[in-house]
């Protein structure tokens, strides 16, 4: 349709939707959304906490039962256990990250399905995913909840998290170059 070609060549559209933003603009906008999120919900942004629930919900469909798990009874009580994906705000926010990025990629006409390069990369995704999931559960969160939000709420735990996440990233880089490329 012609209208979309006109939109696509519009100067403002190109500026907002087609060109990448400088990192500093990303930092400012993320901060603004973090602050809005904090003032409206009373909690900072977190991503990984609800993923254990996703696992539990999926396994429950196949007869799994997690009612006697200490974690779901004592720790993760706020995070909608016993609920479902469509009634879980944090799950919906995670899905929003995915769709927001999809929209952004399409608006720039850059969307393409990208296949994994090789088996090593897939192995890296499997092991890396497991390590991130396990690590986030015992350290109260991921790069967003424990690190970004932890530091921003003035908790020293965020800085400790950052130091050890950096050490992990260094070891991970060595492993990446040796085994996964």
């Amino acid at each position, binding site marked *: 349709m012609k209208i979309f070609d006109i939109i696509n060549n519009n100067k403002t559209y190109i500026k907002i939707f087609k060109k990448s933003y400088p990192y500093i603009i990303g*930092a400012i906008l993320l901060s603004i959304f973090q602050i809005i999120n904090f003032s409206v919900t009373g909690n900072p942004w977190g991503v990984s906490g609800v993923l254990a629930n996703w696992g539990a919900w999926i396994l429950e469909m196949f007869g799994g039962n997690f009612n006697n798990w200490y974690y779901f009874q004592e720790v993760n009580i706020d995070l909608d256990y016993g609920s479902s994906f469509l009634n879980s*705000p944090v799950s919906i926010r995670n899905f*929003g990250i995915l769709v*927001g990025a999809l929209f952004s990629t399409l608006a720039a006409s850059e969307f393409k399905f990208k296949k994994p390069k090789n088996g090593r*990369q897939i192995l890296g995704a499997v092991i890396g*995913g497991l390590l991130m999931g396990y690590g986030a559960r015992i350290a109260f969160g991921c*790069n967003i909840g424990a690190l970004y939000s932890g530091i921003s709420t003035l908790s020293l735990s965020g800085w400790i998290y950052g130091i050890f996440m950096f050490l992990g990233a260094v070891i991970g880089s060595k*492993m990446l170059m040796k085994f996964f490329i």
Partner: protein
Amino acid sequence: MNENNEHSKNEINKNKYIIKNQTPYAAGILIISLIFAIYLHKKSFDLAFYWGIGLCFGFVLQKSRFCFTASFRDPYLTGSTILTRAVLIAFALTSIGFTIIKYINITQGNPVPGMDYVVPISLATALGAFTFGIGMVISGGCASGTFMRIGEGFQLQVITLIFFIVGSLWGARDYQWWEENFISQGIKIYLPDIFGLFGGLVANLIIIILIYILAKKWEDKKM
């Protein structure tokens, strides 16, 4: 001649593919997102708000190529710290905003929001963050990055997400052991408890500025 024609035809097709306009699909996603927002709003305001803010986070992460993994990996791998410094700026701005919101809540006599994120520091923090750091580098994406990359069309991150979920459940199963042995002995340190609310913010900003300077010097030395 014929061959030439064939060649230029291919060239045109190739160009057509590259400049193919995906704006209609973006418009479609936008409309579906709005309808979904209305559906969620009927259930609760909260759900619709989380949906909207999630879209904003995803859009900005993608648009600015904001990658926490690269910000922690590149200083070691390439010596570049430009993303590291952008992340530090985000920490600084967000902590200023959060502190103002806390101050407003305190003056209104409300409880301080966000205190659930002040968590005990123990060996579990160090080990968990360390394994998380390894995981995000070898899988090529952190938690937010994994969702963003799936949206960009990467199939690899679908695998990462599946195993992130498996790992989360595994960690949840073992959580009690970690709590009994380590987390219960950990200490919560909230900077305002030591320095006062604004003193705590200043302490946080001083740490950020020091790391920022260090990162800049590191890059100048390495690149």
